[in-house]
């Protein structure tokens, strides 16, 4: 059977960063991803990232991704693409299907960095062609270079909704409106300001009532909400649109962690049921780690730091770093991670991650 020291499931920002750190420490690393290309959602991020210099602020997401990929190549990380991991067994054997064939991989340590997937929203007409996730539109325009439509209604004012609206306009589409059910905009004001300058109306306390069309989206009906989030009769408006993008949150893709037997806890701000982990990103199963959006939905910058943490910690546990060196590296990463989780937008996530760590201590 094929063997490796550290198997990382998912080659997105968390998985790539983890692979780089673990390989740098000297471990034998195998990185698996079910897609044909690595990078996860990182390569669709054509905007400049925030943070500080150490977070690579001011650099476009996809360039950070290219740099990470280059490092994995230079460090000799084994990358298996088109390799879907479908099982994790007690002795840390992974089962995966690659190019239609079944394989097993015996690992000493496993890092699950499977990310998260977009939520859906139910309303009449939600199944019509043209209704898609905002991330789906982003994939189509930035990775595949095709427009999914020309007149877009964006649902959701978190950073995903705001950023993808901007990127849809950069790709040549028009965003007829962005609607948000809550009474205020959820994402960064600077992202909202860019789309307002471009003439996109933003309606808070507004939701989608129905989408009309025969074979695809033709028109959308939006309605205002009162303080109890109930539709206000008589406030319906019809807008011409051919596409509806749903930016209504993400949920961690936790199947493999459940299956392996990791303990979970329920933390809504992180996206719901999330695997419990400690400061080393280790789950309740010794030798199995998690990193990135699977641990709680945040952003690419925090996914990369968590990936680095899991990489250092898993390499340390195999003896590639002594305790002192590992602690110094991990402290640096924790500092960078904590500075991302500050301010009115980051505080909530900081508190949520503390709850997750506390859940681990309670089980000890």
């Amino acid at each position: 059977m094929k063997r490796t020291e550290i198997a990382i499931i998912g080659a997105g920002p968390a998985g790539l960063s983890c692979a780089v750190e673990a390989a740098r420490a000297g471990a034998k690393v195998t990185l698996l991803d079910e897609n044909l290309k690595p990078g996860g959602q990182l390569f669709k991020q054509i905007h400049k990232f925030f943070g500080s210099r150490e977070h690579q602020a001011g650099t476009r997401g996809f360039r950070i991704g290219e740099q990470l990929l280059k490092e994995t190549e230079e460090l000799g990380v084994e990358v298996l693409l088109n390799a879907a991991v479908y099982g994790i067994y007690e002795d840390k054997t992974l089962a995966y299907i690659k190019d239609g064939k079944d394989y097993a991989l015996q690992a000493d340590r496993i890092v699950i960095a499977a990310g998260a997937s977009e939520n859906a929203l139910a309303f009449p007409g939600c199944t019509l062609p043209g209704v898609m996730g905002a991330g789906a539109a982003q994939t189509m325009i930035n990775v595949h270079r095709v427009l999914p439509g020309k007149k877009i209604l964006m649902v959701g004012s978190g950073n995903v909704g705001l950023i993808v609206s901007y990127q849809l306009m950069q790709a040549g589409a028009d965003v007829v409106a962005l609607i948000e059910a809550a009474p205020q905009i959820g994402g960064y004001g600077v992202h909202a300001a860019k789309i307002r300058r471009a003439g996109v109306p933003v309606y808070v306390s507004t939701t989608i009532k129905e989408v009309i069309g025969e074979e695809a989206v033709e028109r959308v009906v939006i309605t205002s909400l009162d303080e109890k989030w109930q539709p206000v009769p008589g406030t319906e408006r019809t807008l011409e649109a051919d596409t509806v993008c749903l930016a209504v949150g993400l949920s961690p893709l936790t199947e493999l962690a459940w299956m392996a037997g990791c303990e979970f806890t329920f933390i809504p701000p992180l996206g719901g049921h999330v695997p419990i982990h400690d400061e080393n990103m280790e789950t309740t199963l010794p030798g199995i780690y998690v990193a990135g959006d699977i641990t709680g939905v945040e952003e690419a910058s925090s996914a990369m730091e968590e990936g680095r943490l899991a990489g250092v910690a898993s390499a340390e546990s195999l003896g590639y770093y002594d305790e002192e060196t590992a602690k110094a590296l991990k402290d640096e990463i924790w500092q960078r991670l904590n500075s991302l989780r500050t301010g009115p937008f980051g505080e909530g996530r900081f508190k949520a991650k503390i709850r997750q760590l506390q859940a681990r201590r309670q089980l000890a």
Partner: protein
Amino acid sequence: MRIKHHPILDDDSRKCNASIIVDGKKVPAIEGEPIAAALLAAGIRKIRETSKYHKPRGIFCAIGRCTDCVMIVDGVPNVRTCVTPVRDGMVVRTQKGLGEWGEKP
């Protein structure tokens, strides 16, 4: 519609070097791109029909997770078109319902 010029990304200089047959009609495509991308570029949005009420369905997640985009490709049903790369001459059909193995391409 294909995005040739983009303010951030390099110009897309790829040429349509392949074609696929979609429900009997030839559709230009780029070898290696996802089938769903070629369909969207050609303005085709309806991907399949539901079993009971024959309602149209299209792409939802575009990253191979939701299976809304499945079609019959070269006779094989339930193929996720958003993650399956185009090969010149591929035969693609709108899937009605759950599809059947051994369907003629």
